[in-house]
């Protein structure tokens, strides 16, 4: 870099020196308190001239473009898709774009990966980031040629002036663009989506070459000089404390460096942060695992040492049969006159639905590498929630959060589990004692028995259809372990006579978000019971559900915080999936089609499953067709389809055989031999996905395609066999027929 350019760069408030040789055009932006990123604001260079890594784009003089990926890559493809958005607006040649994972830094705005929020929160902001840089490059070229900027376009890594046929590569514009003022937010023109050349294409994940060659991308792969290996044993009964342990024996085992009791709960009273346990530190993972096999701990009894699934189920039945107004039963919604509607109905059905606790079972077991040195610490974590991880580490360590550096690694499966940071807290407390880098690794039993589970639950339902075949009454009593069905959850607002009762069971089970929290089970119960009522009405289920969705386009939410339900979008995907799946075909006994549809995570999705059930009751899901409305723009067609294919197959895996039993205050299952996950042969052989583009902002796809799958399959099983599945997992129901 020339001295003149150096000076120019130092003068420019929005430019910083890159720490790499060559420097370049570096564009950063600050984030507004709302969390929605805004266009480039001057990004002050520090007086000492050091690069502050809060920039999304770096273009070097050789034309290479680096785009920073701010959010954790958990398998949802965000490290590819959001940089594609930047590159699209920038006019970069995707082949010349390198994507680099950003560290945790406030300059990047929100950096969590959860709730399918990354796309809706960042799509427009990333467009603006790219467009701002493009505007400056175009202006630089226009000035060089003495032509109006409006006559120039940026594409494939160069600015072109079509009238004269001239073009200049981005790299050759770096110096000139660096001397230009940052355009005002309002002046930055976004591309017309019809001119997109990259978005909507099939682009492979940027890390694919590293994934297929086994490079050290994941949290569990991280190493530091002088690192030691740790395990952390917790009580089998949640919330129990260690009273004593055979620490002297354990410390004498081969490779063991230390063993000690940690008797702390952080945050106080919670079961999802640091909880009491016994740490073993060794010279290798295997030495630590082996030593744990010899660890003997006397545990204090936990808060609920005798809780069991069977007892929870009994309590739920008692609550369901309690008279109206009983303690422990909240009435969260009442519309119309439900008793009158039941009395005058043509058909009334009552049913009890239940679903079990299940685990996230991230294939990469929970792990974390932490190095605490005095009043500062460094964390390498496969976390969906780096800011939460830093805050918890700060609380555990008594070190200010700003003195803790967090590096987000690639994540071997999230599904919501890694929004919680308990492994970070455990590794932190161990490293603080030893003062060296500590790699903490959970084994599979720890992962299954100390998950923060997808809660089980019980739904007691009563519904009615009138003489015209319409749904006239719906009474639901949800007995849960944590969150309950919301007052506006479907089909509330669509049934004239509607009552929602909610209860919570006292329990000590750690719970957390599991892919499409709430929706992943509510959709099953709702769409299956609607199917029961459709069959009672004598109407075709598609017709019955379209009638239920009514003729209003937007159905207002209830109360000041209520949100509208776009019934037009839902009717559209239901119609589309019916058409594309060949709904209504006559199938032989033992084969059937079923419909599931649900609005979750801002996506409107309908799915039809086609199944075969043998007379002996063996299930095969032959085909799934999905109609998906996540707005106006699919960012990466390959990634989007992968998410829907995966959600459908994961949804089947969860619904078919997954179940955790709770006995004596603990989870019984310890590994995959007792917790069957779906394997290749049982995966649907045919999955067809139809994206329905509508004039709505683009939204995420990590979650919303999962909820409709379980009801689609269960309703197809009914169509094939006449057997109703009212209990998950499906494997609990005898599906044989004759």
């Amino acid at each position, binding site marked *: 870099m020339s001295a003149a350019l150096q000076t120019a760069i130092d003068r420019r408030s929005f430019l910083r020196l890159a720490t790499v040789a060559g420097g370049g055009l570096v564009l950063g932006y600050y984030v507004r308190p709302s969390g929605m990123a805004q266009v480039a604001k001057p990004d002050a260079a520090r007086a000492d001239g050091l690069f502050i890594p809060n920039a999304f784009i770096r273009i070097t003089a050789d034309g290479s473009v680096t785009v920073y990926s701010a959010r954790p890559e958990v398998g949802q493809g965000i490290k590819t898709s959001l940089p594609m958005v930047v590159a699209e607006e920038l006019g970069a040649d995707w082949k010349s774009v390198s994507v680099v994972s950003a560290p945790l830094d406030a300059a990047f705005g929100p950096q969590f990966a959860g709730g399918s929020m990354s796309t809706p929160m960042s799509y427009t902001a990333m467009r603006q980031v790219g467009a701002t840089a493009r505007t400056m490059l175009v202006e630089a070229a226009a000035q060089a040629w003495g032509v109006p900027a409006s006559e120039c376009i940026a594409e494939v890594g160069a600015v072109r002036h079509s009238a004269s046929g001239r073009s200049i590569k981005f790299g050759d514009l770096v110096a000139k663009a660096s001397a230009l003022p940052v355009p005002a937010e309002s002046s930055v023109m976004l591309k017309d989506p019809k001119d997109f050349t990259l978005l909507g294409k099939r682009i492979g994940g940027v890390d694919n070459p590293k994934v297929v060659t086994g490079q050290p991308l994941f949290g569990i792969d991280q*190493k530091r000089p002088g690192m030691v290996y740790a395990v952390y044993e917790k009580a089998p009964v949640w919330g129990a404390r260690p009273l004593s342990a055979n620490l002297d024996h354990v410390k004498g085992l081969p*490779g063991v460096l230390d063993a000690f009791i940690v008797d702390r709960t952080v945050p106080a009273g919670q079961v999802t942060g640091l909880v009491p346990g016994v740490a073993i530190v060794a010279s290798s993972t295997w*030495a630590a695992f082996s030593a744990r096999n010899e660890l003997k701990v006397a545990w204090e009894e936990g808060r609920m040492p005798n809780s069991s699934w069977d007892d929870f189920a009994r309590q739920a039945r008692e609550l369901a049969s309690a008279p109206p107004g009983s303690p422990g039963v909240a009435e969260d919604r009442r519309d119309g006159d439900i008793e009158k509607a039941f009395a005058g109905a043509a058909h009334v059905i009552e049913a009890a639905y239940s679903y079990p606790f299940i685990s996230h079972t991230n294939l990469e077991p929970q792990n974390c590498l932490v190095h605490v040195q005095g009043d500062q610490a460094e964390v390498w974590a496969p976390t969906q929630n780096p800011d939460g991880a830093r805050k918890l580490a700060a609380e555990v360590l008594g070190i200010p959060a700003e003195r803790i550096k967090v590096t987000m690694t690639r994540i071997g499966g999230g599904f919501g589990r890694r929004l919680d940071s308990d492994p970070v807290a455990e590794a932190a407390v161990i490293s603080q004692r030893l003062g060296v880098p500590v790699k903490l690794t959970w084994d599979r039993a720890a992962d299954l028995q100390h998950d923060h589970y997808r809660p089980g639950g019980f739904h007691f339902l009563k519904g009615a259809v009138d003489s015209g075949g319409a749904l006239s009454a719906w009474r639901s009593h949800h007995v849960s372990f944590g969150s309950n069905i919301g007052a506006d959850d479907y089909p509330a607002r669509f049934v004239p006579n509607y009552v929602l009762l909610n209860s919570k069971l006292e329990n000590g089970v750690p719970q957390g978000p599991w892919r499409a929290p709430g929706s992943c089970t509510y959709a099953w119960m709702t769409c299956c019971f609607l199917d029961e009522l459709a069959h009672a009405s004598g109407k075709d289920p598609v017709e019955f559900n379209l009638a239920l969705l009514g003729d209003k386009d937007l159905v207002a939410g209830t109360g000041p915080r209520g949100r509208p339900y776009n019934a037009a979008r839902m009717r559209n995907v239901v119609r589309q999936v019916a058409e594309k799946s060949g709904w209504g075909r006559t199938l032989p006994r033992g084969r059937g089609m079923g419909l599931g549809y649900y609005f979750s995570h801002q996506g409107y999705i309908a799915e039809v499953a086609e199944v075969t059930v043998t007379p002996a009751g063996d299930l095969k899901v032959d085909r799934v067709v999905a109609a998906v409305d996540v707005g106006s723009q699919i960012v990466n067609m390959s990634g989007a389809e992968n998410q829907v294919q995966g959600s459908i*197959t994961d949804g089947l895996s969860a619904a078919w055989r997954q179940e955790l039993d709770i006995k004596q205050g603990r989870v019984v299952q310890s590994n995959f031999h007792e917790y069957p996950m779906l394997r290749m042969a049982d995966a649907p052989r045919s999955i067809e996905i139809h994206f329905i583009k509508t004039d709505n902002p683009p939204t995420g796809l990590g979650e919303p395609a999962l909820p409709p799958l379980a009801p689609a399959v269960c309703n197809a099983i009914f169509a094939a066999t006449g057997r109703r599945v009212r209990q998950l997992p499906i494997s609990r129901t005898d599906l044989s027929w004759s």
Partner: protein
Amino acid sequence: MSKFTLQVNGRSHEVDVAPETPLLWVLRDNLDLVGTKFGCGIGQCAACTVHLDGAPARACLTPVSAVGSAKVTTIEGLSPDGQHPLQRAWCELDVAQCGYCQAGQLMSAAALLARNPNPSDGEIDEAMAGNLCRCATYYRIRAGIHRAAELSATVREVRS
């Protein structure tokens, strides 16, 4: 502790570890070959699949003392340049989501293609039955194996 000489990816390595240590942890902790993944420790997920003299083996259940002179191949040694037909197919079809299981999937699939260059769906089901994918990318794994078989056939045609 005992000394063992291992042949891994065409190179000889000497390690000094407890004899019962699973090959998985020797690869990961001692040899810095972390592409082979830990998932369950009991041979139920196959994320740790390596080849011993070309045959797929679960490294988490293979004590280092049982390896002997067998040639160990890990994902890092599947091809010299990352261009094994399966690796090319995996990138072309964008198979991975989180990617954690994919080394094991690739090693199982490579062993399958080595003995059966054009497997049917049923043969794929059988050969891949041990491998879990938590992201449930089975649809693309199957397509990837078929695509790799095509790519291999093209290479064979060119060579002949």
